[in-house]
């Protein structure tokens, strides 16, 4: 009977052991992205730590084997159980040491879990069960436990309970095993009451956290994104997270803020109208990027515009922004407008094969944070765009921040010039981004900013426009290289500029 109990605890212990490993892997890939890498490195580390643990177990004295097993169970329950919650909080409040804490936890949990099975075997062995029989029975239950969890975790636990509470649940199981073992073997333990007491405290702690977990994770997710998440989706290309707090909707792509509904009008008015106000003859417009439909919304306000082609890579993005009610309200259904033509294709590829010519081109690409995105801000790319621009047309490019990333901003300006554009740089203050930069490109000189707008604007007027085109001394032009595909200086500038700003 007691042996059977120990075997049953092996089953539970094995389930818990695998569960912590899966939870750590899932958490890492959820928070850090790049799931294959995260998962495999977490699992590798965990297995390695288990090896360490089982090695260490041999230093436990024979007579202490049972007591140590119970202690280890309590510790696994406590640390493993709180691991996910703790990691959420660490990620939310202190971004930098997250990886260190994660791996430290994985190593500790792994080492403790690694001690469990060898200890159980020794306890059983002391009780004179035939050794070969023990090994096979223990291993059978070990693997069965693993199978059970590997199915339960993705199908039931993670979706129903969430990562934090799943971990707590397994922690409670571990403590249960500890308490049960202590009770059944109480006669062999020197002081069983100590174990009951410790177990009770840990159990209360875990139980309390289980109840409060929801509030705690919501609070920590809020700390990550600031607000409650109303939609999260990992598409073929990127991770989209939509948050909401009161009337503030925010979109994050791969963790980077794309807009806040509170002040996006500033960004999009500044992006669109300095071009379109000056071109009352505009009939055909091209938007590259901008799958949220917000620039499109501004463009469609001009009744004379006949067609707008919007090229955005990610169909999930344009679908989300043409179906979700709050988002459709935000972009005024722009993506479903009869004049809008949405194309889901890589912009470079589309430009290479299309030969349409447009009166205005609006470029709202992601920032040049890696070599692939850096290519979008290159002489050949801008030349390609140039071929699609009417002789008297205007183009505008979102160009990072002349305040926070001055070298990136002026490098884009230089690249545009080298691609044959006469440029006019300007900037606008968007509270959720800071001072943001744009550059207008034309085939000939002579662009002057608008002094008034025919359409009603929330942000733009004569004075705010004048200020947009004025560069105070702290935003003066810096001398930098154009972005050459051969070395992509822009990507280096961007990295360096922002690493200076962020601590």
């Amino acid at each position: 009977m007691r042996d059977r109990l120990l075997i049953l605890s092996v089953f539970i212990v094995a389930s818990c052991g695998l569960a912590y490993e899966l939870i750590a892997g899932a958490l890492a890939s959820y928070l850090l992205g790049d799931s294959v890498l995260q998962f495999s490195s977490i699992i590798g580390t965990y297995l390695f730590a288990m090896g360490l643990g089982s090695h260490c177990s041999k230093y436990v004295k024979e007579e202490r084997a049972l007591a140590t097993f119970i202690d280890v169970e309590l510790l696994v329950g406590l640390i493993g159980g709180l691991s996910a919650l703790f990691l959420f909080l660490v990620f939310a409040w202190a971004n930098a040491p997250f990886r260190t804490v994660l791996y430290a936890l994985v190593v500790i949990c792994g080492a403790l879990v690694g001690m469990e099975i060898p200890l159980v075997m020794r306890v059983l062995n002391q009780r004179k069960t035939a050794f070969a029989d023990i090994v096979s029975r223990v291993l059978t239950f070990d693997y069965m436990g693993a199978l059970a969890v590997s199915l339960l975790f993705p199908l039931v636990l993670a979706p129903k309970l969430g990562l934090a509470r799943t971990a707590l649940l397994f922690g409670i199981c571990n403590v249960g095993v500890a308490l049960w073992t202590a009770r059944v073997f109480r006669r062999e333990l020197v002081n069983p009451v100590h174990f009951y007491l410790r177990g009770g405290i840990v159990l209360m702690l875990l139980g309390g956290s289980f109840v409060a977990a929801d509030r705690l994770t919501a609070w920590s997710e809020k700390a990550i994104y600031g607000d409650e998440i109303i939609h999260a989706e990992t598409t073929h290309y990127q991770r989209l997270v939509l948050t909401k707090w009161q009337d503030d909707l925010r979109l994050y792509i791969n963790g980077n803020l794309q807009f806040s509904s509170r002040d996006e009008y500033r960004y999009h008015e500044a992006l669109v109208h300095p071009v379109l106000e000056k071109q009352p003859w505009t009939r055909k417009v091209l938007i590259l990027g901008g799958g949220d439909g917000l620039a499109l919304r501004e463009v469609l306000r001009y009744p004379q515009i006949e067609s707008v082609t919007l090229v955005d890579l990610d169909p999930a993005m344009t679908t989300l922004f043409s179906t979700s009610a709050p988002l459709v309200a935000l972009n005024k259904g722009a993506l479903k407008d009869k004049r809008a033509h949405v194309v889901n294709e890589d912009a470079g590829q589309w430009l290479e094969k299309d030969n349409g010519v447009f009166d205005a081109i609006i470029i709202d690409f992601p920032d040049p944070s890696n070599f692939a995105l850096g290519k979008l801000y290159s002489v050949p790319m801008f030349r390609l765009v140039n071929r699609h621009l009417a002789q008297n047309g205007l183009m505008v490019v979102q160009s990072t921040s002349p305040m926070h990333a001055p070298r990136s901003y002026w490098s884009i300006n230089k690249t545009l010039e080298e691609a044959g554009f006469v440029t006019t740089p300007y900037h606008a203050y968007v509270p959720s981004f800071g001072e943001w930069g744009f550059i207008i490109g034309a085939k000939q000189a002579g662009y002057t900013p608008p002094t008034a707008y025919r359409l009603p604007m929330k942000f733009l007027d004569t004075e705010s426009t004048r200020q947009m085109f004025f560069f105070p001394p702290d935003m003066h032009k810096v001398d930098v290289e154009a972005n050459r595909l051969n070395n992509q200086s822009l990507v280096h500038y961007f990295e360096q500029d922002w690493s200076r700003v962020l601590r």
Partner: protein
Amino acid sequence: MELTRRKVLQLGLAAGAGMALGGCKLLQLGLNIKGYWPGMLEGHLLRGNTQLPAPSVERKVGVAILGGGAAGLFAAWKLVRGGRKDVLLVDGPEFGGNCAAGALGGLAHPRGAHYLPLPSLESRHVRELLADMGVIERDAFTAKPYFDERVLVHAPEERLWVDGRWQEGLLPRTGMDADELKQQQRFLDFVAGLRDKTGSDGRRVFAIPLVLSSTDPQWRALDQLSFAQWLKREGYTAPGLLWYLDYACRDDYGAGSAQTSAWAGLHYFASRGGHAANAEEGAILTWPDGINPLVRHLAAALQPAQRLAGMAVQVTDAGKAVHVDVLNVLSRKVTRLIADQVICAMPLHVAAHVVSDLAGLGFDLHRHGLPHAAWQVSNFLIDAFPQEPVEHPLAWDNVVYGSNSLGYVNSTHQLIRQYKPESSVFTAYHAFANEDPRAVRARLEHASAEALYEVAAQDLQRVYGWRWRQHVQQVEITVRGHAMSTPAPGFLGNPGLAALRALDGRIRFAHADLSGLSVFEEASWWGNQAAEALL
């Protein structure tokens, strides 16, 4: 196309075991692997004593160019540009030769040469071509021409896999000790100093084209020993550096540093030094299909009537004209060209079987022939990119430290895309260096799919492990038994080559073999020389 040619050859001309091997065959290994042995059947044909039909047509031409590789096509382009219309080009077995290209799943890929360094100031002929193509946009003959950025290799250019991790650049640095790094720096400083060095005759010591280099005996003495010997003599012992230099020799010459002349080994590092107004030092030019666009541009200068399909089987100087018998392998017809001038742009080991009395012209294959390296160019069509670390994304050229292979190149690297495309072709290069070339060739003729695949995928499997195979859709392996002459010690003074370079009669030669080392600049230089002499 290759398949039908092979069929015809098998049915029509060939008897004997050798024939069944060549051309193109489908090999199976659960994977779709296609093997391709360009020129092999034709080579066997010339060497065997196959009875050829008598000429059925005669045709008079001004200049007959025999060979559609870089050298022959350059000559043709130059002649047409110079106003000559009476030109006829005979392609031979493979259009483009070592600059050939193919396609898998609609994606173009190289079957040979894959890049061109920024041309040196001496390489005016290459600059002229690049300007004509629009690749050089302005200032073609200045120190810093302005290039079309689409073909300047995009960052990140290269990375090296050292002990399970990537590093930037090909000189191994990760985990190397201070002495190693010091020796690397010493070597780099030394070759940097060589770039502007001139010999006693006032010429650059290491120029490209090679024949413009100084003949100063002090420097030429370097040709008497192997690169490995020279490195030893100069006290270079660092294993990382020595591996890298051996890699460089294999990559450029198809032979290891112990089989390469020290002069040639240094030439690789000291001769280039071209610059661009809009790229970093040492940048290179590349296209998805390697440098095949260069030969395609050259060929576009010719009208269809200026080309004749087939291969030269006999070239005889008949006094007033040269008679060239051209066999059309498909129709089995032989056309006799009566040519005022002939530019022989086929490899010299082929010319030795085609040109009557080549030895009489000064080149005796047995005495003067340089060793030939065998190469294998393996193209993998993949339907998804393998996972790469964020801090070291896939580069254009990806090399494995310590490997005896040459790494792999991504054919879609130059695309301007926000995300990687759905599919791509990876090209893995392998030169069979540090082995007896004859033994290699004998083995390659009968190589099984498994054997070829093993060689092809070795670096990829080292890097990506078992996951690599999952991504692969199709494989095409080009085997080049006689890919290139290798610059063994003593090659500079080879009298047979000197004799052919100096020919000024009705028959001239134009081929990279004349230089003794095989790069596009050298091949095209000889095409340019031959054409200029006839303009």
